[in-house]
């Protein structure tokens, strides 16, 4: 990695007007040399205008494509523009910009390709979550442990940092459209990317509607089980990726 990596802070956003401007400004105050890109997933409010006003680059989806597709758009942009590091965070204020340095350190030192900001690692807790979500996190964390041999305390965290190799991998078309969580970690692990968790603080979202609201957890659970099974089946694909990524 170069002495001063080019950093892109990426935020997928859907109807986050009233919050996103302050989050972008706070990111710039923490990482002045970074670029901030907001992937506006078909918002019907002033999300794009607020983000642009705060200095972010806005990538607008003409139609709503989902959280995973928004992340993938950001990865495509990062890959196209040659960024060395992508730090992805939510735009609803749940992820604290002050914790971005925690994600950045293992990437800068070359210890990891994917760094997950965990609410529950190393005693970094205090974050209140519902019973069903905590159960899901533990269940899929356990499954991942069985399938990878690596423990994940917060496999659903979207607060992540990615190296150049991970950016290339995630922008290749393997990324799922919806709920990219444990399945993505499994495919990254199988493809030889090094994943590390770091403890971070998070706060409850300051507004808006969570993508895990209503019946979504039920679909999430079924989708994730099937996705993990499918990733497990595609061994040769991940082996090929492993060889490819090693050569980068």
């Amino acid at each position, binding site marked *: 990695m170069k002495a001063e990596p080019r950093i892109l802070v990426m935020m997928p956003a859907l109807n986050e007007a009233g919050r996103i401007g302050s989050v972008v400004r706070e990111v710039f105050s923490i990482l002045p040399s970074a670029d901030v890109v907001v992937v506006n997933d078909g918002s019907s409010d002033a999300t794009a205008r607020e983000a642009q006003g705060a200095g972010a680059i806005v*990538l607008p989806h003409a139609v709503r494509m989902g959280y995973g*597709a928004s992340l993938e758009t950001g990865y495509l942009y990062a890959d196209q523009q040659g960024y060395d590091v992508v730090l992805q965070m939510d735009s609803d204020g749940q992820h604290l910009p002050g914790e971005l340095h925690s994600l950045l350190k293992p990437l800068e030192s070359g210890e990891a390709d994917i760094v997950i900001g965990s609410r529950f690692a190393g005693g970094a807790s205090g974050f209140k979550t519902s019973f069903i979500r905590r159960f899901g996190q533990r269940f899929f964390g356990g499954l991942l442990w069985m399938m990878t041999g690596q423990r994940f305390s917060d496999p659903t965290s979207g607060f992540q940092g990615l190296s150049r190799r991970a950016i290339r991998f995630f922008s290749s078309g393997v990324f799922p*459209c919806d709920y990219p969580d444990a399945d993505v970690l499994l495919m990254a692990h199988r493809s030889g990317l090094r994943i590390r968790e770091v403890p971070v603080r998070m706060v409850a979202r300051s507004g808006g509607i969570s993508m895990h609201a209503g019946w979504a957890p039920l679909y999430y659970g079924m989708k994730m089980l099937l996705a993990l099974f499918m990733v497990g089946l595609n061994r040769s694909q991940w082996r090929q990726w492993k060889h490819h990524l090693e050569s980068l």
Partner: protein
Amino acid sequence: MLYQQFIVSVAVGVLLLVLIIRLVQRGSLDIAYCWLWLGVGAGILLVVLHYDWLTRLSEWIGAVTQTTTLFLLGFMVVLLMCLQFSLVISAHRRQIKRLTQRLALLEESCRCTKCDRGEST
């Protein structure tokens, strides 16, 4: 097979084939999606013209009557069509996603170009 049954079945098969060919001819139905429908029309005619084949198939699969076999075949065709539509929808979703992403990148690229030229965005 009764004479009336023969006439009605042949008419249904022929009408279906004519309808599909007309739809393709007018461009309302893509050739890519007409094969299964043509197969259904041809299948109906085949069953009518070779009714003994249906009888043998029924014996072979253990169906008590030929009607059961026909329902089974019809159900399988419907399932195949549903699978075909699911495949097409999945492919379209992937293509729309890719187009949306490319459009987003292109819009940003256009905005940058305008900024470089000093035009307001």
